[in-house]
């Protein structure tokens, strides 16, 4: 198992490299920050920009070389640099917002904010989806089943931005009725709050509830349908019938034989919800005014801030690959027929 995990982790490297090459090409070719900046300066001063300024901009952002060269220098930091670039040396590259905007600092602080949201939402959606799927399957064609099915498809059909706005408005109205702020709908925590992990968590809880709910419901629907189908299949299987014929009580059969086996396909599928939640976080963070990674990447994309976008791509790529790794490991743990040599 350890060997398997190590091998899978090593295999993540070429996947990540491929992803960065594709993204780099896409981001880099789709905008030209130097031209944008020159245009801005021209607009504000009303005079043509001297060639020396353009050269300075180009060299500080490494735009004085070709795209492959720029990618190479972004990755390795080898060659003629200003000492602020090179992923392998732990440097993320210069942001076009200037030296005040340090990508490394932004990314590292915002990552935990986003991870908090994404992780809670994913775990909650998997948990609730499994529960709802099992209840739906056991009580097939009952009113409960139909209700859960309807709710599932409702949230599956609703885009995150619409769901987010709706929930935010709902939370505001509830707050008004109750006359207190049960739900915080703007920001991710009390600004400047410092303390140990637990205190931070308690402080951020009212901020966390509504956005997590929004992100959760988006991922919940698909997984719960999946769980329902796989549970139904297993419930009709011969070994569930044999377990009942052995005299095992119905509830125990459902838990020990049906659910345990029905979890296998879901466990391999559910961790991929992480990637869905990473995407959803972009929108959710914007709506609820979180200063997370999603919003940062959105701004970076709008500004054409290549190196900032690349930082986001790399981090979300790692998160997704970790999700895939977890699903592979779960598969091996849950299903004895799978062996990792």
């Amino acid at each position, binding site marked *: 198992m350890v060997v398997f995990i190590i091998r899978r982790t090593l295999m993540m490297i070429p996947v990540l490299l491929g992803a960065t090459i594709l993204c780099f090409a896409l981001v880099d070719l789709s905008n030209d920050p130097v031209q944008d900046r020159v245009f801005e300066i021209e607009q504000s001063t009303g005079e043509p920009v001297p060639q020396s300024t353009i050269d300075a901009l180009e060299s500080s952002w490494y735009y004085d070389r070709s795209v492959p060269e720029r990618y190479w220098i972004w990755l390795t930091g080898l060659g003629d640099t200003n000492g602020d670039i090179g992923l392998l040396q732990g440097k993320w590259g210069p942001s076009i917002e200037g030296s005040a905007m340090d990508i490394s600092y932004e990314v590292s602080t915002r990552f935990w904010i986003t991870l908090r949201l994404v992780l809670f939402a994913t775990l909650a959606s998997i948990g609730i989806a499994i529960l709802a799927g099992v209840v739906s399957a056991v009580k097939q064609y009952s009113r409960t089943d139909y209700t859960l099915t309807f709710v599932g498809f409702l949230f599956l059909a609703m885009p995150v931005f619409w769901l987010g706005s709706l929930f935010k408005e709902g939370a505001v109205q509830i707050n008004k009725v109750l006359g207190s702020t049960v739900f915080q709908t703007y920001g991710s925590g009390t600004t400047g709050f410092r303390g140990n992990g637990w205190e931070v968590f308690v402080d951020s809880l009212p901020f966390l509830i509504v956005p997590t709910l929004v992100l959760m419901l988006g991922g919940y629907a698909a997984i719960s349908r999946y769980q329902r189908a796989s549970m139904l299949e297993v419930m009709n299987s011969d*070994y569930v019938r044999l377990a009942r*014929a052995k005299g095992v009580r119905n509830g125990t059969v459902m838990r020990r*034989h049906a659910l345990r086996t029905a979890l296998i396909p879901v466990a391999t599928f559910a961790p991929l919800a992480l990637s869905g939640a990473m995407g959803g976080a972009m929108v959710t963070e914007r709506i609820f005014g979180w200063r997370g990674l999603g919003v940062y990447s959105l701004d970076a994309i709008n500004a054409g801030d290549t190196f900032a976008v690349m930082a986001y791509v790399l981090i979300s790529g790692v998160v997704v690959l970790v999700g895939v790794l977890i699903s592979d490991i779960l598969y091996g743990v849950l299903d004895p027929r799978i062996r990792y040599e």
Partner: protein
Amino acid sequence: MSNISVSTSNGDSRAVGAKGDTVLSVKDLAVSFPTDDGLVHAVRGVSYELRRGQSLGIVGESGSGKSVTSMAIMGLLPKTAQITGSAKLEGDELLGLGDAELSRIRGKKISMIFQDPLTSLNPVYTVGFQLGEAIRTHYGDLSKQEVRTRCIDLLDSVGIPNPQQRVDAYPHELSGGMRQRVVIAIAMANNPDVIIADEPTTALDVTVQAQVLEALEKAREEVNAALILITHDLGVIAGHTDEVLVMYAGRPVEHGSVDEIFYEPRMPYTLGLIGSLPRMDESRDQRLTPIHGTPPSMLNLPVGCPFRPRCPMHQDICAEVEPGLLPINGSGHVAACHFSDQLEGKAPDEVFAPVATDLSVEAEVEAVEAEAAALHEEEDK
């Protein structure tokens, strides 16, 4: 295996009939399933009595209600099934019991073996766990070591080599025959009074079939249980049962001892079944006599005998009155046919016409060959 001749010594060596008290008595059992098209009457009144140590074979084609009858007794049918009648195990009614009461009986007093050994075991648990589960469910106070020892004994008694190692194997590490033996071991784990084997050998190849049946026979003798063997393999029935119940369209149509059923069938359907089997003791030239047609739909059964459309002997009364099980000679042999006395001493080919004679087949083959030759000639030109 498919040798249907019943040797009398076989019958003598095993105690036939009243060896012990009645363990299972089924009376007027009927099962219907509501569907979008209406009620499907899967079982329409089955009655039989099973005594300790006795072995009852239930035969019939697919959809004749063999399995549904047994599943109804075990309480394994879906909730939508409408079950009437009575099934008493040692005098206690089984039908209508709740999950808690049924769970105490299932696996302990009455156990069941299912058709497909490849899917009967849960792929994620070891053989030992699933076998042990059957014991632990009913004897919760046994220690882990005791359960394990008993599991190994059970696996050994059904003929699994190296039971000490196999007990920790997962089902996918065993062959089909091995898995079916594990299922048999599960069925005999708590020394049940009744073992129901629902086509235990259908999914296995012939050599493995023999071994599995042997294991089943051994299991039955070891725990002195009554056996219900559901199958459509008449060869298996001949070799392993004392009494036979022939089912057609959800009802028993003939019931008697093995010898009576095989040598003096008094229902055209039974006769047809026997006529459609190859026999080792007759010359190869004889053609088999098939029963034409298909079983009727259980959704809208016409009045009268359900076998009438396929029966070569049918007369007007058959379309009007469905015959009950009428006694033949007072020995307990019963058959549901208006004209059962006419079947006395008849061979299958006297009642059922063979589809084709050897001559007509030969003529057909020659015609096809001639045609092919003509085509060739044309192409050559």
